[in-house]
């Protein structure tokens, strides 16, 4: 059992196991450096690579490191860290349960630490909300495993031997809410009689989201008891530094469209021309603009410069992307992601040297400040007009 919990520490039963052992977290952090070390590495890895690093050889250490890691994340107290950490734990869990599920056809080792789909669904209270779709008669048959083609990441693609599940719409919507891409939107789904068909691959992606929400639930803890906070102070300080180094929370609050990276200039141009952009492009530009400090109103205002577009629709899309609770809920995609979506255009010299459109813009701002120190924020011109 320990092996299972160490592998999936977010499980309700794992939490109970920790509680039952009557482990006092304060004692653990004071007396078990291995746990603290592993906890810190979970978070560090999450920040740097989006994974959580190699498990500790000892199951108990591995299991206990999870609640300690959540405390660490709370001590740092940055929303961006909570998000990154939850995403990383979820990604790793996904990798593991995909492997476990693939394993069912083979002989399982005796001390199997695997989780099956039913168990996973039960964990997230989904047993009643999911059922396997009755297989379609007359569907093209193919010899099992005969296809060597890797199923592309796209959610719309599936190999014909993959099973389809029907997920109740009330369960689907919260899980798909943070999934990236228009193919997850309900309007593009074959909804019938209250059920959304999803492929097995998609179902596992949705479960990954469920894990992410579970990990992030309640974080950051509002008040970590002093003895625990004190014992973890050094680790928390290191993490804080790491967050700062990665410039995840650097506050830019200057809007100078002339200095935008080429990709964002192009997207903004398209919007102002009233062109209909695919979701990923809309997402990229809107996330970029809100990351440089723009409010929804300002973004809408900027979009409507020279354009004949429906304000309501734009506002609506904008809010949707920004998230209503936190202005920078979504960080803009990196250059690599922009490239893979074909949104990276007109690359220039500076582009060669930076990994992220935000880095591009920051650099340009710095340069401009160095040159003559006079930067006019687009929003100031806006206020001038409104005052007339």
């Amino acid at each position, binding site marked *: 059992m320990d092996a299972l919990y160490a592998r999936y520490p977010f499980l309700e039963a794992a939490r109970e196991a920790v509680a039952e052992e009557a482990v006092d977290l304060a004692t653990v952090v004071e007396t078990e450096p291995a746990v603290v070390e592993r906890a810190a590495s979970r978070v560090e890895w999450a920040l740097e690579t989006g994974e959580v690093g190699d498990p500790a050889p000892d199951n108990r250490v591995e299991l206990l490191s999870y609640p300690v890691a959540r405390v660490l994340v709370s001590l740092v107290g940055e929303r961006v860290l909570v998000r990154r950490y939850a995403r990383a734990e979820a990604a790793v869990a996904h990798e593991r349960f995909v492997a476990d599920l693939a394993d069912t056809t083979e002989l399982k080792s005796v001390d199997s630490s695997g989780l099956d789909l039913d168990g996973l669904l039960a964990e997230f209270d989904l047993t009643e*909300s999911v059922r396997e779709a009755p297989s379609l008669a007359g569907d*093209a048959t*193919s*010899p099992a495993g*005969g*296809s*060597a*083609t890797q*199923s592309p990441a*796209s959610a*719309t*693609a*599936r*190999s*014909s031997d993959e099973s389809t599940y029907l997920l*109740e*719409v*009330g369960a689907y*919507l*919260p899980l*798909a*809410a943070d999934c990236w891409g*228009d*193919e997850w*939107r*309900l*309007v*593009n*789904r*074959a*909804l*019938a*009689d*209250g*059920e959304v*068909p999803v492929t097995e691959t998609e179902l596992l992606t949705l479960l990954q989201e469920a894990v992410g929400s579970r990990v992030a639930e309640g974080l950051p803890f509002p008040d970590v008891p002093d003895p625990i906070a004190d014992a973890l102070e050094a680790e928390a300080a290191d993490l804080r530094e790491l967050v700062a180094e990665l410039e995840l929370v650097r506050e830019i609050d200057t809007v100078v469209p002339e200095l935008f990276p080429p990709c964002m200039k192009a997207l903004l141009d398209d919007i102002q021309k009233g062109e209909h952009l*695919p*979701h990923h492009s809309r997402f990229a530009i809107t996330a970029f603009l809100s990351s440089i400090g723009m409010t929804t109103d300002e973004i809408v205002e900027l979009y409507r410069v020279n354009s004949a577009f429906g304000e309501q*629709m734009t506002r*609506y899309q904008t809010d*949707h992307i920004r998230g*209503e609770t936190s202005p920078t809920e979504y960080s803009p995609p990196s250059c690599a992601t922009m490239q893979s979506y074909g949104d990276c255009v007109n690359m220039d010299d500076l582009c060669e040297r930076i990994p992220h459109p935000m880095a591009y813009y920051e650099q340009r701002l710095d340069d401009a400040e160095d040159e003559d120190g006079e930067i006019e924020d687009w929003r100031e011109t806006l206020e001038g007009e409104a005052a007339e």
Partner: protein
Amino acid sequence: MEERTRAYLRGRFRDYYRRAEITPPPAPESREWGYIPWTTGPDTRMIRHRSVLDIGDIETFLERERPRHVYYSAGLYEDPGANSMDEKGWQRSDLVFDLDADHLPGVTLGEDSYAEMLATCKDALRRLLDFLEDDFGFENMEIVFSGGRGYHVHVRDERIRHLEREHRREIVDYVRGIGLEFDHLIETETVAGMGRETPTERRILRTSGGWGERLHDRFVSFLDDLLAMDEEAALERLQSFDGIGEGKATAALNAATNNRAAIEAGNVTVHTAIAQLAQRFAERTVEAENAPIDEPVTTDTNRLIRLPGSLHGGSSLAVRRIDRADLTDFDPLVDAVPETFTGHEIRVTVDRGGPVELGGDTFTVTEGEQSVPEHVAMFLMARGRAEKEKETGA
């Protein structure tokens, strides 16, 4: 509105509430209640954040207060009478849809009559119900005539009452067809090759539900019409589509003729000309079949909605629940006229005359003093188009 008019309306609202049987929504004690009284002045404010504990039994309350408008919350709370949403402690909400003639495409304000607007609204309601019943498979729905310019649908299906604002927005987008992308309605299947064939990809429109099915139905019936025409007419029809010239039209027609069965099975990508045509249908389908609901009403989990059975203070019509089976025959301008107000005439001074369709009749009211059936008078006074005539002594 003059005081004697207001006093008259108030009095008659009380008579209505004395006789009416009001069935409150389920779990009234967990909901917030609000109402607008018949006070003077332009800044008549809503009194809200009331719980059943504050106002008492609903029927007694209505009879005592005879409010101009009365509402309850879609949301259910731990403490519905608390003054802020935070303190209320949200638990879950009915999912509410609002179709309002003011916001409907196909309604020309100032030109369409009240009856015409309501008829357009009912068409939209039918499309909405199609989504709610077939696509969403909702149970426990209540259809309501709002007493004003439209219809409400309250969904109390336990499987969706936990949904939050952003999730409800997906439902709005779905029924409005916002964000529909043809490419995402297509499913790519990898079909393993037989023998020495290499695996191939089939691109199939998902026809098992959703907008894919709607689009497909429309498309197939369009092709049926097309194939029934003579060739020249068919080609002409095809060329009426944006970006389809003579060459593409011919190609599409040939492809449709040769691949009728494949297309029927969802394989709309058998031929590029067909694929292009099908893509054009996405927009047309949305235009024809979407339900133009008022977005904020559905996404707001704390929304206040009119109480069915109560009177609408802007029309003196009743907010009416409609049995699903009776929907076709329901005529708001007959069935929502409260019986209490029918059967006799009263004297009013009409400021703004014009046609009034009510109770199955059409009246053309002229300006000035006159006797009119009371329900017409109530309607005109509530709308601010008439005043109660001064009493000329006993």
